[in-house]
């Protein structure tokens, strides 16, 4: 029999960025908070100390900081008519595990999403007419405007120590920033990082062609920084070991060095690692959560943790899984298009090479290992730009064109010109010659929902607790292929103007493949909206069906932007924390 524990005010499932923010905000407000993290504890020293942290095989290839699919994974198929088979090894995306979650191993790209993203359906209907939106593309507006969320974006940027340059201060365009960004009340807390040589070349070429290059905002601190909570970040040393690694310099904005220690300083907060939540417990009405059931995976003991409020702050995919396992909300059925939990799963075409262009220069040296996860120079002319004519592209959404330089780690990064063999003497010569002489122009596209791209529970496969795995039905569709083809050609035009010795790409988008790494930008499944008919959670990320359950994270996005998700994920966590503190705490129930 499970041990029943003493009731608390709030139980938090998962302690990454969203769980960490809620843990700090709610415990500082005097609420009794317990956080259950299925992975272990960890801290910069000794867990991310050099030289061991610079181990590409362990961290980047064997995924030491990631969830273990032997315990729990999902099954995958392209369409409802195909058999769904387990993702037996990690590949396409890498959900994190352990204190800090994916906030430890992320690159640090921190956007505020565009005005178009916040009001997608309204924008496209007004600009292009209702018939421009395909019938099988259930896009919808966010339930809050950009302006409403602006202070929360700002708060997250301050917490994470984001380096960047404003492009629009209170409506006034700023030279050097993103010309197309929404108005911000104040600039980033830190100036941009020093660009790489590749980025300076791209900057000049893009400007020459009349585009609007700007430094990509990133939570890699350009100098030492103390955030408003008193958490201290070091200056980035451009070591090229961000994504899939922890930062030994504390220069990457991460929850384990910011919000989580602040929560842990509160007497009303308790953290329990190795605690795997298997379901949210509901009362007999199924309209109220009474707590969560979990297993201590270091002992096998089972517990029930009663709580007045349950916040699901696991990775986006796992939030959806827990809702389905717990019977919170009506599961989505792609055939009838009824139900809400599981719908609007989106990914991100373009990440991972498709659409991008690699340039080879006989006479240039790029030092690809002098790198940070998130710095970059990019253009938003084909994404955030209201004036960009999507009719010419024949598709909704858009894509960014960005030169980053995230690493030169040699197991993974070995660019060679097209036609080079993959092994043997010719391959060696080409690898030795081009390793330092190549740069990449990346194209990352938005991803609109499709009625068939969705989650439900798998009827066959089980996790180690005997529970059904999540089942993912997903493929890229025509809209995605058109965006990649169109913006890929724009990237190629810029590349050609840079006069490389040779170039490869842009590749075309084919079927989704769950094997090669693309991006850990999985969104949707528990989307936010304006009514129980179009969403699983309301504007405060509160379950319509079980109002004392909050589902926080990228699971709430109705579609995916061409931007990385963490900026709005952090902002929404602060937004939800404020709603709980200022409204729900005093008047529990569905908030309006």
């Amino acid at each position, binding site marked *: 029999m499970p041990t029943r524990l003493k009731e608390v005010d709030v139980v938090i499932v998962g302690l990454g960025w969203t769980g960490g923010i809620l843990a700090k905000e709610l415990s500082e407000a005097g609420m009794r908070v317990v956080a259950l993290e299925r992975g272990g504890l960890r801290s910069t020293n000794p867990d991310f100390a050099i030289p061991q942290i610079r181990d590409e095989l362990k961290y980047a*290839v064997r995924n030491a900081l990631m969830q273990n699919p*032997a315990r729990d994974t999902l099954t995958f198929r392209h369409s409802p008519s195909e058999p769904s*088979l387990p993702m*037996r090894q990690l590949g396409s995306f890498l959900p994190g595990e352990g204190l800090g979650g994916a906030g430890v191993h992320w690159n640090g790209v921190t956007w505020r999403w565009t005005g178009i993203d916040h009001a997608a359906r309204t924008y496209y209907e007004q600009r292009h007419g209702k018939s421009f939106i395909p019938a099988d593309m259930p896009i919808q507006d966010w339930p809050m405007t950009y302006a409403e969320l602006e202070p929360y974006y700002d708060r997250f940027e301050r917490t994470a120590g984001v380096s960047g340059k404003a492009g629009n201060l209170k409506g006034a365009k700023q030279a050097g920033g993103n010309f197309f960004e929404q108005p911000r009340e104040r600039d980033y807390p830190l100036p941009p990082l020093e660009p790489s040589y590749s980025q300076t070349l791209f900057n000049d070429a893009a400007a020459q062609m009349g585009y609007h290059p700007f430094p990509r905002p990133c939570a890699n601190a350009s100098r030492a920084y103390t955030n408003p909570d008193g958490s201290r970040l070091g200056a980035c040393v451009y070591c090229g070991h961000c994504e899939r690694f922890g930062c030994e310099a504390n220069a990457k904005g991460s929850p384990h060095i910011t919000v989580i220690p602040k929560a842990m300083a509160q007497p009303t907060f308790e953290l329990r690692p190795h605690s795997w939540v298997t379901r949210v417990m509901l009362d007999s009405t199924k309209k109220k959560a009474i707590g969560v059931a979990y297993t201590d995976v270091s002992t096998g003991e089972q517990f029930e943790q009663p709580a007045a409020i349950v916040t699901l702050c696991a990775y986006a995919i796992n939030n959806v899984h827990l809702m389905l396992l717990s019977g919170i909300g009506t599961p989505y059925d792609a055939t009838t298009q009824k139900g809400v939990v599981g719908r609007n799963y989106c990914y991100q075409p373009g990440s991972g090479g498709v659409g991008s262009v690699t340039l080879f220069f006989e006479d*240039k040296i790029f030092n690809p*290992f002098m790198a940070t996860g998130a710095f970059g120079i990019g253009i938003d002319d084909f994404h955030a730009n209201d004036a960009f004519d999507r009719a010419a592209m024949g598709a909704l959404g858009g894509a960014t064109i960005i030169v980053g330089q995230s690493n030169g780690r*040699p197991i993974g990064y070995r660019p060679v010109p097209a036609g080079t063999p993959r092994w043997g003497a010719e391959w060696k010569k080409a690898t030795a010659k081009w390793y*330092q002489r190549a740069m990449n122009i990346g194209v990352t596209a938005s991803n609109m929902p499709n009625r068939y791209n969705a989650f439900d529970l798998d009827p066959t496969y089980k996790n180690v607790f005997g529970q059904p795995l999540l089942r993912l039905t997903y493929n890229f569709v025509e809209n995605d292929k058109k965006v990649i083809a169109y913006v890929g050609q724009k990237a190629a035009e810029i590349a050609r103007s840079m006069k490389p010795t040779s170039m490869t790409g842009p590749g075309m988008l084919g079927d989704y*493949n769950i094997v090669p790494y693309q991006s850990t930008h999985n969104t949707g499944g528990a989307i936010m909206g304006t009514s129980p008919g179009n969403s699983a959670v309301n504007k405060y990320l509160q379950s319509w069906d079980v109002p004392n359950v909050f589902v926080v994270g990228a699971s709430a996005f109705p579609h995916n932007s061409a931007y990385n998700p963490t900026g709005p994920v952090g902002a929404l966590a602060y937004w939800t924390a404020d709603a709980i503190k200022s409204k729900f705490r005093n008047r529990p129930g569905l908030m309006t």
Partner: protein
Amino acid sequence: MKNNRRDFLKTVGTVGATGIAAAVGGETVIDGQSPAASDRPRPPGSPAAAPVSHAYTFLTAPEAAFIEAAVDRFIPADELTPSGTDCGVAVFIDRQLAGAWGSGDRTYMQGPWQKGVPTQGYQSPLTPAEFFRAGIAASNAYCRKALNKDFDRLTSDQQNNVLQDMEQGRISFDTVSAQEFFNLLLASAMQGFFADPVYGGNRDKAAWKMIGFPGVIAIYSEHIKTYRNKKYDVEPKSILDLS
């Protein structure tokens, strides 16, 4: 000299590879210390290396002969680096197969099993180590049938042809997918060649020197600016060096 090891193993019969390495140490009868290997120019600045280990714990002697031959085709000795085997890549693969990864760590191993399509990824009921073992056996069976010899006894040109046929999916095996096995074999060899030498491959940081990867210290706060379009030439440092 390329088949020295194989011939030697035949003469000593059933003694396992580990036993041989322990018994003969760095004696010249071991292939890595053959005149062909020791005459090879070493990259400038590299210290005299300790003898290449041929001590294997997972691979049987015939399996080790296959892996050594394959990684020497993937990474042939030339003016850039010693051969794959001499860079420790075969030893790296053996250790990975013997360790957590080989035994299926971080792999969902529950059934039922179905073949699936390539975009669904690895669907074999075998652990990676078992998969490797089956792949080696199938490759040798194919070579014996088509060319009357095990893979490691073929000429270099024949070996290259067989590997290309596997890579392109032009041949198939009964047990495992030839192309899937090839891809795993190649990926493992590249991991061994480029990973930190602490894992047994990339001996003397040969692969890092080949491309100019400076290794693990990586403090570039100033260099990001001062080394724009300028080569950064340093002796690479590994975890092994700093530990």
